[in-house]
């Protein structure tokens, strides 16, 4: 008699051989799966960062009404990077409302008289806070005006023989304690998702083909007539899908390693470790999840009558891992032990920890792996039950 695993091995080898000849599978497992995540990540991150940088260095366009009333002020503002727009016309309110300009500054007629008399001279800023870019631009304009006011105040005090420090009773210095979370924090919270995505895409076609595809091409019935228990056939298919999924994940990690060099980490003020050591630790963290993903995909697609139907089901399954990512990025909740017992969430937390350069605690790591494996086993049991049904083989 044969060893019990022999049939599973036969199925595994055949699935691998067939898939290696399938351009669609190869494209997904070796190209799209591994590259999509890192590429998307780098592009998104660069876009965000360069946008922020540009905004800081770019001239700040502001429409000024009554510039002739305060030539010194306007000249100073221009030196600080302000660009005078003539779009303002006589009605700054209307100019901002109609979105012709983002910011407008009105210097009223009373300005020069107040200024010369040493009374507070009023200025009006017009802006629309519901526009996305208004916040930073408004802050910059205020900072410029503040700076001008401060310098003028200091000068006036010195003229009167007083120390300018009199008007500065407090000196503030901010010390940001958010270690590795810079401006790209949201994107970093998405990074584990990009990794999981490559794992989802990697074995997708194989999972679809393994049951729905075979049934559609009418090869499942002859296969199941062989004197082999059906769970062995299922096991062979799961292992083959795992192999492709795992290859895809490994390639994705290597791609991230390369992508790390193209990240504008310095400009972001974000320290982020993605060296070979981190990758070596992420792989074992992801292994139980790979198994769970594969079994879930095979379970779901086995219910589909055609590959098209199977694709629809998988599309929905694909959305599932976004949920913990979004939750983690929106709510900066502290990780609790129970979270590691939730498959997907546990792996995301562990990967984030590794990326921040922290060491993994053994307790949560083992808990996460066990919980995920348990769910994978349950999914395998369900898939096996489905495989034992009579209607599985029937193509119609």
């Amino acid at each position, binding site marked *: 008699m044969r060893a019990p695993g022999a049939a599973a091995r036969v199925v595994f080898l055949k699935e691998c051989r067939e898939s290696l000849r*399938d351009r669609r599978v190869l494209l997904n497992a070796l190209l799209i799966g591994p590259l999509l995540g890192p590429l998307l990540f780098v592009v998104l991150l660069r876009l965000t960062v360069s946008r922020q940088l540009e905004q800081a260095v770019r001239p700040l366009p502001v429409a000024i009404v009554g510039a002739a009333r305060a030539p010194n002020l306007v000249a100073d503002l221009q030196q600080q990077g302000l660009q005078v727009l003539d779009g303002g016309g006589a009605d700054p309110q209307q100019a901002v409302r109609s979105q012709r300009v983002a910011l407008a500054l009105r210097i009223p007629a009373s300005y020069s008289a107040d200024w010369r008399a040493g009374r507070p001279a009023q200025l009006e800023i017009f802006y629309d806070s519901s526009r996305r870019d208004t916040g930073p631009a408004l802050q910059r304009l205020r900072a410029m005006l503040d700076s001008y006011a401060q310098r003028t105040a200091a000068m006036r005090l010195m003229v009167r023989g007083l120390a300018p420090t009199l008007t500065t009773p407090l000196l503030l210095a901010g010390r940001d304690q958010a270690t590795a979370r810079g401006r790209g924090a949201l994107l970093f919270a998405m990074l584990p998702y990009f990794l999981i995505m490559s794992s989802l895409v990697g074995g997708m076609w194989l999972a679809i083909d393994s049951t729905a595809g075979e049934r559609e091409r*009418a090869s499942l019935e002859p296969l199941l007539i062989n004197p082999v228990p059906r769970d062995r056939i299922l096991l062979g298919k799961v292992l083959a899908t795992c192999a492709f999924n795992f290859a895809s994940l490994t390639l994705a990690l290597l791609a991230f390693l390369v992508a790390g060099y193209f990240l504008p980490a310095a400009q972001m003020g974000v320290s982020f470790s993605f060296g070979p050591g981190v990758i070596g630790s992420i792989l074992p963290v992801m292994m139980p999840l790979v198994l769970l993903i594969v079994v879930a995909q095979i379970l779901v697609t086995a219910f589909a009558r055609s590959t098209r139907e199977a694709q629809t089901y998988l599309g929905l399954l694909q959305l599932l891992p976004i949920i913990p990512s979004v939750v983690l990025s929106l709510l900066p909740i502290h990780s609790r032990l129970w979270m590691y017992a939730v498959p997907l969430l546990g792996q995301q937390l562990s990967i984030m920890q590794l990326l921040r350069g922290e060491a993994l605690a053994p307790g949560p790591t083992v808990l996460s792996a066990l919980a995920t494996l348990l769910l994978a086993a349950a999914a395998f049991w369900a898939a096996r039950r489905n495989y034992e049904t009579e209607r599985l083989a029937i193509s119609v």
Partner: protein
Amino acid sequence: MILAQDLYKSFGTLCAVGGVSFSAHDGQITGLLGANGAGKTTTLRMLYTLMRPDRGRILVDGLDATREPVAVRRRLGVLPDARGLYRRLTARENIAYFAALQGLSGALAAERIDQLIDLLGLQAIADRRTEGFSQGERLKTALARALVHDPRNVLLDEPTNGLDVMATRTLRDFLRSLRAQGRCVLLSTHVMQEVTALCDRIVIIAQGRVVADGTPDELRELSGQHSLEEAFIQLIGAATLEAPA
């Protein structure tokens, strides 16, 4: 040797097979003849253990199909209605996959595969991928993989469906050679010429029940008709009339 005793199978409220009994003997070609939807495929699926009968018993070479399905499958070579091949594998690889699943390996498997490729005239296409094969080429490949483990009993569901004249002729000759080797051959068909040309025994099925069972001569006698086709119409018509509405 295949023995079917009083088989029943329902899908929901639909009774597909309602009391089928017959036997198929070694060294004979037995034909299950019936119109589309008469219950032939369901009967065969129960015989090759893909489905469990609701009632009744199946013995293959004396083994109970419900109790020992794996052992029974080892003794059966099956060409089901679904005969899809793996398009990205060559004909030889398709056959070798099933050989491996049957537990054959190494030189024995290679020898057996070569033998079947010769017997079925597949030499020219054996190492081509099956994508783009003609119906006849596909059937031969499916037949080779069904017989790779040298089974004593051969079940074929509508084997000549979609074949041209030449391919049909080759297939018939091949089935006769299986009979000559002393195997038990059981095929289903709705084509009258098929049974006339091939079968030693005919089991006529209508509405899930056996309405007649015998040699072609016996059936002609039973119905009082000269041609087998007339006999078939007569017997099926009788079954339709008898069946409770």
